[in-house]
């Protein structure tokens, strides 16, 4: 996170991580389509080859936090291919929260695990403690055959601390929910570390309601 007290501006970095071809870029594209241009800036795609990300995609979102405060979110994707690890590590620098986009297909189980371990390692190498770093997991491609069943995912989800979301990013299903879930745990984490409420008078619940409202989703049923 970067804070500019003078300009009353908070910038939060969220990274979409995951194995190759799991739909990280598709997530950003879907958010870009679903969110009004008032909130989302242009989606920037940096260097692709054969439609595969080489560096990263970047989607900026801006929310008003009240009292002239600007809260900017920068959504990044990493390149998923194994060989781009140096770039992945660079992109993960200074991440405040991470959405891990997993491929629901059973055949991709191993790739998911390896990418997750790789994320863990790269977080550590960037001086970020994986045990406190806010992470949500999205099981994408729910519409494909031979995927893990909902029951399986729900059962596994109870074992971990990470909130789990299911999505079909190509159709925009579950994408906003994942983003809001990530924003929520990230913001609460930042609040507990930096006391943004005290410093900027921005109450976490109020802010999260603002985000939900702007993204066209009512208060999440609890």
């Amino acid at each position, binding site marked *: 996170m970067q804070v500019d007290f003078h*300009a009353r501006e908070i910038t939060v970095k969220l990274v979409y991580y995951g194995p190759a071809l799991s739909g990280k870029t598709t997530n950003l594209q879907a958010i870009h389509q679903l969110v009004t241009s008032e909130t989302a800036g242009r989606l920037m795609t940096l260097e692709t080859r054969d439609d595969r990300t080489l*560096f990263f995609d970047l989607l*900026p979102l801006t929310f008003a936090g009240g009292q002239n405060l600007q809260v900017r979110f*920068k959504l990044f994707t990493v390149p998923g291919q194994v060989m781009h690890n*140096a*770039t992945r590590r*660079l992109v993960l*620098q200074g991440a405040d929260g991470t959405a891990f986009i997993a491929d629901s297909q059973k055949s991709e189980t191993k790739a998911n695990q390896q990418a997750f371990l790789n994320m863990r390692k790269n977080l550590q190498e960037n001086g970020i403690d994986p045990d406190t770093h806010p992470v949500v997991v999205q099981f994408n491609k729910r519409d494909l055959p031979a995927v893990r069943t909902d029951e399986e995912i729900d059962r596994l989800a109870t074992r971990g601390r990470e909130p789990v979301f299911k999505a079909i990013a190509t159709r925009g299903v579950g994408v906003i929910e994942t983003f809001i879930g990530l924003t929520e745990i990230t913001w609460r984490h930042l609040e507990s570390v930096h006391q943004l409420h005290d410093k900027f008078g921005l109450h976490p619940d109020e802010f999260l309601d603002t985000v939900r409202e702007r993204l066209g989703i009512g208060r999440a049923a609890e």
Partner: protein
Amino acid sequence: MNDGAATAKSVDIALGDIADLQDVVDRDALREICRSFFDLFNLSVRIYGGSGKLLASVSEPVELYQYLQELESGGKLVGDIVDAVKRLVPTGNEVERHETITGAVYDVVPITYQGRGVGRFVIGPFVPAELEQVPKALVRLDRSVDRMKLRDLLMKMPRVREETAERITDHLRSVIDLLLFSSHRAHLTSEMHVASVRESYRELAEKTAKLQSAYDRLKELDQLKSNFLATVSHELRTPLTSIIGYSEMLEANIAGELNDEQREFIGTIHQKGNQLLGLISSLLDLSKLEQGVMRLAPQPVDAGGLIEDLERTFAPHAHKKGIDLVVEVRGELPALNADPLRLKQILANLAENAIKFTPEGGTVRMVAEATEWEDEGGDFGAVLMGSTREAVAFRISDTGIGMPSAELERIFDAFYQVDGSSTREHGGTGLGLSIVKRLVDAHGGAVTVDSKPGQGTTFTVTIPEAES
């Protein structure tokens, strides 16, 4: 938590942010945009960076201002207008309209990028199309003012309708935004290229350092191995000398007459003792050669005499095995400067092998001939690089079992034998050729091998004449 203002870099890779328009956008591009904007709408335009620096501007002198400046109190007035416009920094994302006493206005438009203000542009002065009359305040400015002229000049200024002004500012805004976006992307891409290369280099450097330390450790172990070999060989030799010495004395009946059986046994002890001594000496030689502590005692050597000497040594052995030993000295040989003992050791080793691997009725041929020393590098630039040194080539060929070509590269490695079973069948330690190779290297020479399975093997040792 970082204080953004304090740590702001031109482009921040971690956040992919820019702090100021001027950090990423090419000034010439901005100027060209201003120029085409001016050509299209006949409106003056100025673009400022986030820090307030003027980045590009296209305008023409305002005749009204020129006239006002001729008036007594007009000069200050114009200065104040220009200053006020310069100082005006709109907050938020809305266009700020600055109205002046002349009735002309300026539109100050913030340039925001990814939710952050990075600069502004100013359009004007222009006169709103709705303005009909010269504002009273302007007329009252000075007594000497020419009302008609004021009106003329005011009406000469560009006139813009409200909604047109909006469309024009929107247009320029989106042009600048697009320019910013593509510049930012190009900028980030190049930064990422550099950062990725640097990161990969760092990774490689780390791995290289690890490999280097593993390599150093291995070299150290290798050195330890050589030391160990040298020490053990040396320590083994001492008691062995006693065993050989005493068995020799026993054989010579110094301790009394031996019966035939005892003589045979002692003879075996003596013979095997000598064999063991030979092996240990080879090990010692090898370790000395590996450590580079083997000292050669070079002196002029007669190569022809050397090979004839070898013939005398090996003729009985060959004869006993039913092998034809042919020795040839072809032509006049150059004088060599070599260690005669070691050179003899080289050739003896090869001769012994040749006899060992040649079946009964075969031929072992030893040839010494003059040749030209060939430096490495072949014929590339030979006129400059080639040497004119002569050399002696010793060729030792047999008609033995030969070796497959794949094995030829490895036969000079220590302890290597083409077929493990040959040690049992033919004896030997697998040290001979590695010692040969190292001794030849120590003489600055070369050893090569040529072999065909079933047809025999030829070893060629080339020793160059002393460098003049």
